Every structure is written in C-alpha cells, then in structure tokens.
C-alpha cells in the first residue's frame, strides 16, 4: 500500500472521527464520549510516522477547536504534544501488545485532557470533576477497537 492511499485513509478517518466527537448523543452518554479524533490521530502517527506528525496534529487540533467552539489553540496544543510523545516512542510501541499499548494510550489521553483542562482553567470556568476524566477511561477501552478497525480498512485496500 502506497503513501498517498494512506493519506486518503487518514483524511477520511479523521473526518468521521470529528463527526463522532460532536455527535448528538442522549444526555446520559454525553459525558462518556471519548476523544475520537485524538485516538485516530494516534493511530496514524504510529502507522505512518513519516507522514503524520506534529504539524498535522496541530492543524487537526485547530479544526477541532473551531468545531467545538474552544479557544483557538487549545486542542491544537494538546494534540501536537500528544503526537510528539507518540512519535518519540513509536518504534517501541510497535513492539507492544495491544493491551500494553492501551496503557500508553490512556496516559496520552490523560495528557491531552490535562492540557485542555489547564487552558479551560486559564479561561476561568473549569471544574476538575470525574466527568472531565470519564472520556479518558472510555477512550482507553476503545483503543483496541479503533486500532483493529483502522488496520482492517488499511489492509483491504
């Protein structure tokens, strides 16, 4: 599979992940909705590290900022830092089992959430409650699903 196809898959999957991020769920599930865009982004950073890097993550973060009405740069900063840590460790992560990866993913999600919280706090209206961290836990459980799904779509083309 060549690089341009990988990039096409990248754009399409990020597009759908953004859709999932703002999908209008019933009130009960809203607090549990994980950060699909970040999970997808991490997958692509690990899969094609030479194509998807810090700048890419930053651009995607800016669009997510506009999409969710945050300060410009909030998701961008969180995503680019997370992408950087994944880039640094991608060789080692490739050797890991899926459940070992999940552990690393959870810390990545936590890092991104904490940066987002810091900025919300700087804006002056944030409360650190469990609700803020629920998406991290749910996101960790969804990592194997994302990984296998995206790899399946990459393998069939």
């Amino acid at each position, binding site marked *: 599979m060549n690089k341009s196809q990988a990039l096409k898959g990248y754009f399409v999957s990020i597009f759908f992940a953004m859709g999932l991020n*703002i999908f209008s769920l019933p009130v009960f599930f809203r607090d549990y909705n994980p950060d699909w865009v970040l999970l997808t982004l991490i997958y692509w950073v690990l899969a094609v590290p030479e194509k998807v890097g810090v700048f890419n993550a930053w651009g995607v973060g800016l669009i997510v900022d*506009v999409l969710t009405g945050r300060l410009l740069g909030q998701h*961008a900063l969180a995503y680019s830092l997370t992408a950087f840590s994944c880039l640094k460790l991608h060789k080692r992560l490739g050797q890991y089992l899926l459940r070992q990866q999940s552990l690393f993913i959870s810390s990545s999600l936590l890092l991104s959430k904490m940066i987002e919280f810091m900025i919300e706090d700087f804006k002056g209206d944030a409360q650190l409650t469990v609700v803020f961290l629920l998406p991290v836990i749910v996101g960790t459980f969804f990592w194997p699903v994302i990984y296998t799904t995206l790899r399946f779509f990459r393998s069939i083309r």
Partner: protein
Amino acid sequence: MNTRLLIVVLVSIFFLIVDHKSSRLDTVRSGLSFFSYPVQKLVSFPSVIKDTLVSIKSYSALKKENALLKEKQVIDRVRLLKFAALENENIRLKGLLGNSFELGEQILSAELLSVNLVPYEHVVVINKGSKFGVHAKQPAIDANGIVGQVLRSMPLNSEVMLITDPNHALPVQVNRNGLRTIAVGSGKLDRLKLPFLPNNADILPGDLLVTSGLGGVFPQGYPVAVVDNFIMQPDKPFANIYATPKAKLDRIRELLVVWSDSTPVPLAFPDEVEAKGTKNDKKENE
C-alpha cells in the same frame, strides 16, 4: 522534530492568548470553519433523514393537519388584529408621556444542527451565519420565549448560548410588579436560578419573568421563565429561587434570531418597515 514542536507550542500559546483577549483571530476561525462545516452537516444528516421520513405522511393526515393549522391561523390573526390596535394605542400613550417606543424587531428563522459541542456547556449550532447578517450578542427566541444569544457567528453557521448555560446571565423583570433581577443559568435545561433576590422579595411561584431590556442585548418584554420554587434562607442574605424557562430548550428545532438594536441589517420587507416607521414618527410628533 524538536524545533517543530517548539514552533507549534509557541504559536499555540500565542493563539490562545490573542483569542482570549481579543477577537482578532475571528478571520482565522471563519476560514477554518469551512473545514468544520461539512463535519457538522454530516453529523446532522441522520436527523434530516428522520424529518423527511416523518413528513411523508398519508394524505388524510396531512389534510387534517392542514385544516387544523388553517383554523389556528384564523384565530391567531384575530388576536394579532387586537394586538396591532393595542400596539398603536401604546405608541400613542408613550408619545403622550414623551417616551420612545421600540419598533417591531427584524427576525430571521434558523434551524438547529443536531450537534453537541462539549458536554458541560449549553451551546447549540444553527444553520445561519454572518452571510445572513447574524452577529454575536444577538438574542435568539422561539415561539414561547427567550432561547439564548448568539455567541459567535461564522460564515455559514453560528453558535448560540442557551439561557441555561452556567456562564449565562440575563436581566429579567417580574411581569406582575416590575421587580428587576438577574436570571442565571443552572446547567440544567429546565432550570434558571435567581440568586440575587433577598428573602423578603415580592416574588411568588407562578410569576412570569420577562426580559427587562437592561444590558442592551435582549429587547424588553419577551417572556423568559415562570418562577416555580421559592426557598427562604433566613440565615443567608439571598433566597434560593428557581424558574422554569418558557422556551422548550430541550426540544426546539427552529429558533428566531432577532435584530433589535440599530445595527444595519438587510431589510426583509423594506416597504412595510418604512411604512411602519413613518407612521410611528407621525404618532410621536402628534
């Protein structure tokens, strides 16, 4: 790779500060919204399909509905006639008192996109933006009462903060006696708080709250909420008062964006408004 990260972090922090302190990055935001708009369209697509399926009803049901609506329209028209007469009288009386009277507001109907931005904020997205002249700090109403205000407008869509958002405060007035206060959002879609009224305030469950027009964002006299709970707190300076919004915030599909101030807007019906304006001037001159 490290220099890349450094650049990105510095630019992000710069963006964050500028965006927090000013609105200079709105052009960047508008530009980026051309990427985010398709996503919002994609997400609200299922509800569009559902609406279409619902609207494909049988002939008889539609006929029945049509008859009902026609009947309702006749009744509403009769009522409006009465209101028009009352409005004229009001203008005349205000003219006698030497006060100005606000003209009828311009409105634009907009549809909600079924997206959910962040779980802890009550902000919705509508499908009309600055292309239609929508701008920030514009009130949004529905048939029952105040819904919220425009937070930010982008070329094709805009964000509307509902009155129940914890960051939203709205100057209101008790319709019965004119008591003024501020209604603050509670974070629940069916609750407003009135935190700044003393224990001996003249306010009762069942009182209608209307906008007071102070603050300059909302026009005066629109219904906001009905007081439903008044809990005295003898040991504290202020009572706990709760109200239920008149607008059905959890099931609105359409809302109306209002132009009430003197900002130039594209007139919907120029002749009519002009005619009304001259009529009003005459009344005031009398």
